[in-house]
């Protein structure tokens, strides 16, 4: 029992260490490193992308707010634009097993193909460690990390908090705007916004 106890303890500590700060990431500071499996079971580590811009997107395929941006093609368009600029796009699913939107390796692969998700990797965070470490509260929720590993933007995908596709053309896409500014060598003007959408379906009742 004691052996198992200590092993579990060590595992918990390791998980906590994986995301320094383990509560919230500060805009303008180094983004916490993490390691997750993608849809192919491949280990993906944030720190390995140093030198490139990285976009994180929290995802739940069944959330109506996520559907707004996928069914309209808005998110895929943003993903393609980011990648055309040389950025790495990591879509992260922090839903716990049994909760809405949870994906296994197999279902995630099907989902990426079906929705035409143009992410570099679809990452599975079913324990919610990375989601909580980045204080991801909603789907969608976005984070941009610059080539030096500094977090330069966190918040919503755009400034029209609604579930209606019709609002997309009139909205400011915060990710495209920030990427554009970064490409032009300018500082990101809007660094933090309020994200909107469904709650991230973490494990646990309360």
């Amino acid at each position, binding site marked *: 029992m004691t052996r198992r106890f200590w092993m579990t303890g060590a595992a918990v500590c390791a998980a906590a260490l994986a995301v320094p700060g383990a509560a919230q990431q500060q805009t303008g500071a180094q983004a916490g490193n993490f390691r997750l499996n993608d849809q192919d079971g491949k280990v993906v580590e944030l720190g390995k992308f140093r030198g490139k811009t990285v976009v994180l997107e929290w995802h739940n395929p069944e959330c109506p707010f996520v559907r707004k941006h996928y069914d309209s093609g808005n998110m895929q368009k943003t993903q393609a634009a980011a990648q055309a600029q040389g950025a790495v796009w990591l879509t992260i699913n922090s839903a716990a097993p049994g909760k809405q939107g949870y994906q296994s390796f197999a279902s995630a692969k099907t989902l990426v193909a079906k929705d035409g998700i143009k992410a570099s990797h679809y990452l599975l965070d079913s324990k919610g460690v990375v989601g909580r470490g980045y204080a991801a509260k909603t789907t969608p929720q976005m984070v941009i990390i610059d080539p030096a590993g500094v977090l330069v933007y966190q918040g919503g995908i755009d400034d029209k908090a609604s579930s209606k596709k019709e609002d997309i053309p009139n909205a400011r896409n915060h990710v495209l705007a920030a990427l554009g500014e970064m490409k032009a060598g300018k500082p990101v003007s809007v660094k933090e916004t*309020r994200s909107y959408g469904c*709650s991230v379906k973490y494990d646990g009742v309360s």
Partner: protein
Amino acid sequence: MPMPFLRYVLMIVACLAAMPLMAQTPPTHIAASLIAESDTPAAGKTVTLALAMKPAKTWHGYWANPGDAGLGPTFKWTLPAGATAGEAQFPVPHTLLIAGLMNYVYEGDYAHLFTITLPAGLAAGTKLTIALEADWLACTAEVCVPESGTFSIPLIVGNGAVTAMRKGQFDRWRAALAKPLGSAAHYQVSGGTIRFGIPLPASATVGKVTFFPLTDGAIDYAAPQIVRRNGDLLTVETKAKGSAGELKAVEGVISLGEGMGLSLSATPGAVPAGGTILGETAGAQSSDGLAVTLALSFGAALLGGLLLNIMPCVFPILSLKALSLAKAGGDERTVRREALAYTAGVVLVCVALGVALLALRAGGSAVGWAFQLQDPRVILILLLLTSAIAFNLSGLFELGTLSFGNRLAAHKGTSGAFWTGALAAFIATPCTGPFMGAALGAALVLPTAAAITIFAGLGLGLALPFLLLGFVPALRRRLPKPGAWMDSFRRILSIPMFLTALGLAWILGRQSGVNGMTLGLMAALLLGFALWWLGRRQSAGGRGWIALIPALAAIAAIIVAIPRTPAMAQETAGGMLAAEAFSAQRLAALQAEGRPVFVYFTADWCLTCKVNEKTAIEREDVAAAFKGKQVAVLVGDWTDGDAEIGRFIETHGRSGVPLYLYYRSGAAPEILPQVLTAERLMALAV
């Protein structure tokens, strides 16, 4: 995996069950309907419309600020030319924490209210079509569904009549809205925490307090909130968001429990820390208040336990035991083990006594007699207890004698020492009674943790000298001899006890007036007589406890009879102005009599109101001036958001209290300033 499978089956069953319903009503999980308070609103006047929301079981809708996730509703009106719609009014929300994410929601039926202002000059009988497009998010703990509805309501310009049914319905909805606080609130951000200071009279009662910010970026929604009351200030302290320092103001609603809430706008400013912690978070989240109580009660109990050692019946046991230790000499390890065993025995018995007492207390509160210091009966019992203890210490009577000190000391070995300790604490109870009694009294009114600490401290204090003797051999020879000095010391100890009784008598006087205090002192005197008589019998060799029965019966009668409400003149209904309760009918009747009328509206939670009442209204000079001019006074209490009063206040262009009106006969009322002075009031009645 059987679980997801079962879920799918259930989902299909649920869909099938819902199908006939879906045919008739729009498929929303929150059923919405638009209702007008009056179907025949008057031109140039306002009419209130409600979007009534009925969430299905397990579903919830969102407040204007949804919290960590979710989305507030949006409303778009299509109105006849010239008509305007006010902002949506939201009922006070409640919290729903799901997997660490905070949601500000409504789980039961609720309604958004809107004030529509119609243009003047519309002919009666004109048909008006008012349409609303509303979007809202319906969620369970698992899923969210964006829902929307288009509603239109045909209204005919008329006299603004409201049916009794609609009136009742809308009054209930209005009562659920947040009321304006009416005073300036502040907040202070420092070191990652934000503290809101909200003026609230110390006399206002509150339930579970939660601050709901409308302004995003001020607080971490899911962080626990520590609520304190500090006189006329209620403070809410919680984790600040990083951007909180840059805000100019934080708007929000402070919920005071049971659907009661006050809307406010807080601006940056100093907010004092400290105060009494309220609510559930007190134990776990912020322990400093409780820690101080615990440390204080433990310290006092330890001191009390130490004093117990020089009580005439305990000291001989101790000194005999110490002598035997000194004689045993040699093996220091055995001596130490005995000292520890003795300590364990004493502390365990004391804690067991405490647990037994707390069990009794829990049983008592279960059947309805809670021990509260606000209850004068509890104060009277404590007064009698301390008086009895003081009489005992001063030597008026004895609590039985102990003759088995020798036998106790005769025990040998570690287990012997443990039982010696246990017996010293337990069998010596009659003698240790005075201090046990004080601990008992304190334990009855303190929180459980503090009560247990008191008993543990008492035990540790009692065992401490012996523990020292065990570990410091040099002390054993220095031990003072038992003698007459112990008796004198006991008499001296009665002085602080009498002082305590005096203090309690004063509290009793504050709570139930001069009559109550006199009754209490009479009970104490009766007790003194009975105990004195008992002491006489004891010194004559008799027992005489029976003599206490009639005295105790008389005392019990006094405890029952003690007045429970303070007899303070100003606080009685009506006050010195002989104010009557407000009603529109009474106001009309008084005006018909041709009398000038001063009407004021107040609420228990309104600090400005209470300050005005104390400094400007409830004054003898004002009362005299009003009396001289036959000014009638009506007071409306809006504490519970009475709908009739709410409507009356609104017709005078205000949204909340305080409101002061002065009616001269035959003239429109004069609205007086919100900050009143007695001079201003007296100037009215000339």
